[in-house]
């Protein structure tokens, strides 16, 4: 059984998709969401096998939802869009599944066939099925730089530029901002990949926002102390020295 999540901000659109998916014997719709934040929360809690993800939604777009997911544990993603030339070009280029609105039943069935075979391949090969879609979404939303973090029971969007530094801790990453610390169940490498250029690793388990670095002071054997504008003092191992210096223009 393939467990499917349906995400679209328009009720009639969700109704149609749910109705047609219900006709498929091997599919079950496990949830419906009307916006991006809800979708991100439901993907985390329901762990569906596949998501039909509308791109154009209030709050958080479908592309942004996908960009926040960790490829290793992500569901299969089928983007649904009425008109988005830019994204569609990228989907075609990277063979990401998408459904163009409006669609008829034949088209949906073709998409479902592709989805089944993709899932079969993934299960057989052990690879993550959502990988390409997520990387494509990240490339598309790259500049927007927003990060979804848990806040109590809910998810919240924060600006990537407000993050001062990141610290890996087992299966979690602590996200430090001026006011708060958030805990994300992600790997540091994947988070860095999502956040892009702005951040640089200074230690196996620590990365800093370049614009938040105040000064560096040398320690023994090429190690350095990194003083952050917010007051934190972090240790940089010499392995990462060159990259930081290079990026800071030294």
């Amino acid at each position, binding site marked *: 059984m393939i467990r499917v999540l349906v995400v679209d901000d*328009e009720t009639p*659109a969700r*109704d149609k998709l749910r109705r047609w998916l219900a006709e498929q014997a091997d599919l079950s719709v496990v949830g419906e969401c009307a916006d991006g934040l809800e979708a991100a929360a439901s993907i985390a809690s329901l762990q569906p096998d596949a998501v039909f993800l509308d791109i*154009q939604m*209030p709050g958080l777009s479908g592309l942004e939802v996908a960009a926040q997911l960790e490829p290793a544990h992500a569901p299969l993603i089928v983007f649904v869009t*009425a008109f988005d030339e830019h994204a569609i070009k990228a989907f075609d280029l990277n063979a990401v599944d998408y459904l163009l*609105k*409006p*669609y008829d039943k034949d088209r949906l069935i073709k998409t479902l066939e592709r989805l089944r075979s993709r899932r079969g391949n993934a299960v057989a090969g052990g690879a993550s099925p959502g990988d390409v879609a997520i990387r494509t979404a990240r490339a598309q939303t790259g500049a927007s730089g927003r990060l979804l973090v848990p806040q109590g029971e809910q998810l919240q969007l924060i600006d990537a530029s407000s993050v001062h530094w990141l610290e890996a801790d087992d299966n979690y990453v602590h996200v430090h901002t001026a006011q708060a610390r958030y805990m994300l169940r992600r790997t540091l490498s994947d988070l860095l990949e999502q956040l892009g250029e702005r951040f640089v690793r200074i230690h196996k388990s620590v990365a800093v926002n370049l614009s938040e670095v105040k000064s560096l002071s040398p320690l023994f054997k090429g190690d350095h102390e990194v003083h952050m504008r917010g007051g934190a003092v972090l240790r940089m191992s010499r392995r990462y020295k060159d990259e930081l210096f290079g990026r800071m223009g030294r």
Partner: protein
Amino acid sequence: MKGNRALLALWALFWLLMIAVEIQDNYGDRGIQWWEPYLWEGSSCFAATLWLLVERRAADHWNQYLAQPWQWFARHLAWMPIVIVTFIAAIYGIRHGIYALTTETYEHEPWSFIFMYESIKLVLFAGLWLGIIFGLESFARWRHEREQLLTLQKHLAESQLAQLRAQLQPHFLFNALNTISSLMQVDVERADRLLTRLADLLRSSLQASSRNTTSLREELKLLELYAQIMQERFTDHVTLNWKIAEDALDTPIPPMLLQPLLENAFKHGVERSRRPVNIQVTAEKHGDELRVTIFNSDSTLSAEPSSGIGLRNCRERLEVLYRGRASLRLEPHDSGVAARLALPVNPS
């Protein structure tokens, strides 16, 4: 040519002055007959005029050097030797001929002096007149080029307008089609109604884009159709208020000018918000200005870094059509955004 007429007038004035000065110089001189000054200046005038005509006949030839003044003058001055020789030969020939018909004798300085004296005078006067001709020709050329530029700009403005002329965005059309396709699974009549609205809107917008002006009344009809379709899509999500002053309805406005503004209100207000959004459209006459405001609640300006093509198009259209007499501003207002448009009531 206007330039030539001005030149002719100046030329006539110049020679009248020369004759007057010559007469005044010899006034009261008993040894000189009354007609002599006329003959002296008249013969000079005759020879000089012939050369001027020659120069003017070849005006097109000289004009190609207008952009390089040194060339223009040098090529003229290259003719000076032949002008000097023919000029002196002509005027003294005429003068001696006429004197021979009378009882008077023409007395003048020796030829070597005459040649020097006349040469210098000719070069000076030729320089003066070449300066005048050059000025007039350059002015005529400048005016001609400016006229060409103006027509060019007018054509450019027209084609720009044609390009800027707003059209329904594909984004909107595909979304509306999708809503219909979804709706018809559950409510055929509603889907049918929506399809009819969409057809009406397409028809109106096609008509609108073939015209140069429309009235506020017509434009509002189009807006209402658009709003109805969007309301079907976002049923409980949006409320619309219209406050339109009766006396504003017949104001002429460019077609499809307001639609992109309403579309923005939906795009940045309704489509991006999770709360119900209110959209208000107001139009009123204020002196000889038409003021239209489209307000949507629940959005901010700063959140839109690349404030779309639609808005830029509107601004460019206003600039081409009204040249600074119309304005379009976006500003935060009551936890939302207001687009404020002001147009002169009397275009032209």
